[in-house]
């Protein structure tokens, strides 16, 4: 297994908005009149190109996620993007990290869509679940105070729908479904790997430890990520197991260029945009009432007031670098800092590595990807330089020939009854009268040939 995995994570921002000082929030209140679909078309397709290209560069996976009514991440329906990636890639794992499961009326929709993608992709899906950030709750009728309960219940429902034969009845507090019976079921057993993005709350860590899921620490300073990872390791030990390194992923945007100076020249404006503009959100929109417990809210606002943490929109580029929200520099610098970082926090995967940030031009993203894949990835890989997913056989045959070879030749045919007949039709040969004649001859309802 490689020392470190690299995931190409895309937010799909829309940066053509008024200057940052002219609006209060990039989320909720900034009007969608600034969204020009003509530009959006170019952007979406470029972004999809980048995600598809990640497979050729040798990334360990690609990731997309769900956000609503904002210009920071324009994927209200990440499963749609995932569907395109499924079609345009062959082997790379695809993460929807994640679907905001408390926000939707029927969580089974997510169970169905991820199962569809998992089947079509041959078991390449990673299924992330999130509550959605606070802002998301202004865009629908779900009360922020119900967020945690709905997340827990939607999660339990989806996992049960994937793992227990239907139909069954779901009698929850927030969801009642008389007949749970999603078709298709996912290929991966017992279900696609689950990733939980989080900000280090104890509740999240305990949830992940309990279910043996993979944690994904979103933008945070290194010391905070370490604290959260240590917390998770402790929770796992408390439950009697040692957490494998693959359980720990950190989102650390990473930009690499020919020299340190060149890397900063190229990346600074765009990386700053992600935090200073993309995440410009007033407290009351970030934390709608009930989204956090009063105790957590008190701790958080207290830490802000005391200057222990800083709102992301307030961070300067130098602070982001110093606290290792980001890693930027020459190949040598990035290699060293990534190595130190992952050793220190105990990460097994880095998300948003060598990726696309804010309004960064397409050519610059491609440049970052190429240098990253040629000069950084091999340093953290076995001698062959392969991503881990290429070291094992695909979970499902990709061709009819393989399927037939593995599942019997010819494969079991579909059989059915035609109304009015009592005899089973063999659909493989239903159109060949000389074969089927014997079994159906004389039946008044059917004329063959």
């Amino acid at each position, binding site marked *: 297994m490689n020392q470190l995995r690299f995931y190409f994570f895309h937010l799909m921002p829309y940066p053509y908005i008024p200057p940052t000082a002219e609006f209060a929030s990039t989320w909720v209140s900034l009007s969608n009149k600034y969204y020009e679909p003509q530009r959006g078309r170019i952007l979406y397709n470029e972004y999809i190109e980048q995600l598809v290209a990640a497979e050729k560069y040798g990334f360990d996976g690609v990731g997309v996620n769900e956000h609503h009514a904002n210009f920071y991440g324009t994927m209200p329906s990440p499963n749609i993007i995932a569907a395109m990636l499924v079609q345009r890639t062959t082997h790379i794992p695809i993460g929807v990290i994640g679907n905001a499961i408390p926000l939707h009326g029927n969580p089974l929709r997510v169970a169905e869509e991820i199962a569809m993608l998992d089947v079509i992709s041959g078991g390449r899906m990673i299924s992330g679940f999130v509550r959605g950030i606070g802002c998301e709750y*202004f865009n629908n009728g779900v009360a922020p105070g119900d967020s945690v309960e709905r997340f827990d219940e939607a999660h339990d429902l989806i996992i049960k729908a994937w793992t227990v034969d239907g139909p069954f009845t779901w009698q929850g507090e927030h969801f009642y479904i008389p007949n749970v019976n999603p078709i298709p079921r996912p290929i991966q057993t017992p279900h696609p790997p689950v990733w939980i993005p989080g900000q280090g709350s104890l509740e999240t860590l305990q949830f992940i430890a309990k279910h043996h899921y993979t944690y994904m620490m979103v933008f945070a300073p290194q010391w905070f990520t370490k604290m959260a990872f240590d917390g998770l390791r402790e929770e796992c030990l408390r439950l009697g197991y040692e957490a494998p390194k693959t359980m720990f992923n950190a989102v650390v945007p990473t930009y690499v260029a020919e020299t340190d100076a060149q890397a900063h020249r190229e990346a600074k404006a765009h990386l700053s945009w992600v935090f200073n503009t993309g995440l410009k959100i007033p407290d009351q929109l970030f934390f709608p009432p009930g989204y956090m417990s*009063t105790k957590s809210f008190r701790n958080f606002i207290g830490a802000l007031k005391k200057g222990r943490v800083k709102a992301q929109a307030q961070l300067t580029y130098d602070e982001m670098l110093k606290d290792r929200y980001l890693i930027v520099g020459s190949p040598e610098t990035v290699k060293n800092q990534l190595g130190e970082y992952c050793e220190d926090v105990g990460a097994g995967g880095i998300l948003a590595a060598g990726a696309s940030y804010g309004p960064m031009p397409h050519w610059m993203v491609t440049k970052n990807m190429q240098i990253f894949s040629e000069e950084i990835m091999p340093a953290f890989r076995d001698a062959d330089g392969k991503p881990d997913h290429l070291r094992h056989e695909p979970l499902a045959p990709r061709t009819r020939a393989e399927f037939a070879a593995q599942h019997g030749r010819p494969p079991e045919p579909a059989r059915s009854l035609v109304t009015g007949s009592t005899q089973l039709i063999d659909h493989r040969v239903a159109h060949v009268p000389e074969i089927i004649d014997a079994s159906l001859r004389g039946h008044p309802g059917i004329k063959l040939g």
Partner: protein
Amino acid sequence: MSYVDAIDKVAVPKPARFYTSPQFAHVFGVPMAYRRQGNGEAVVLFHGAGFTRRWIPLYEMLAKSVDFIAPEAPGFGETPLPKWFKNFDDLTILYDQFFETLGVDKIHLIGFSMGGWAASEFAAFYPRRLKSLSLITPVGLRLEDNPGVDIFQLSPVELLDRLFKDKRVMQEFLIDPEDFEEGIHLYSEFSAAARLMWAPRYNLALERRLQRLTCPTLVVGAEDDQLVPNAMSDRFAAVLPNSRLVRIPGTGHEPCLERPRALADVLLSFIAEAAR
């Protein structure tokens, strides 16, 4: 699950002005905080989504003439918020049981802002308890094409700015939008308010249900309400049977704090008339 389970206990700050210690009545395992003073007709006021814990001048004025009771709903003031508390139905039943516990039968009910919605719900379910119903800058009906501002999108500074037409009030009550503990407490009270009214911000059934009322009804509107459209009090006055509408000059959304004398006079004369 027992009703006593899962009460989120948080320390409640005491406002610098007009704070008094409440009494508690245990209802379904919830220690309901309330303040009560005076003699005569039982008059109950359901508070809005903030400014709890205070025995404000309006209450003092009312308590000189009536038996005045100001309870605090779950999640507000010093009444804790149990996990099961989700909606106005829970609140309505809790209040009815609260009156049972206090041994109070018939009441004159006053509701302010969100408390106006709560009072309307209560009135629709327990009309026989009411001798009169007064709503002060209430919310809870739908104004088509005029949803007003989203209170949950306002910063504390923006909220206070919209609450008062008369800004001197903030000084009199030592209200400071930057106060840390009060800011946290407001978040917890808004968390309770969001359980009741995040979505939708109205109950369409109220227009039909309120037709049951036979007691006199009063709507007190503001002169210029920057938080809830003035049209909301017009709508309530149009919907309520036997109603009259009074607008108090010089007021925004908070007549209780802005013009307590004028408001007390209006309420007391209406209650006196209804009691006859």
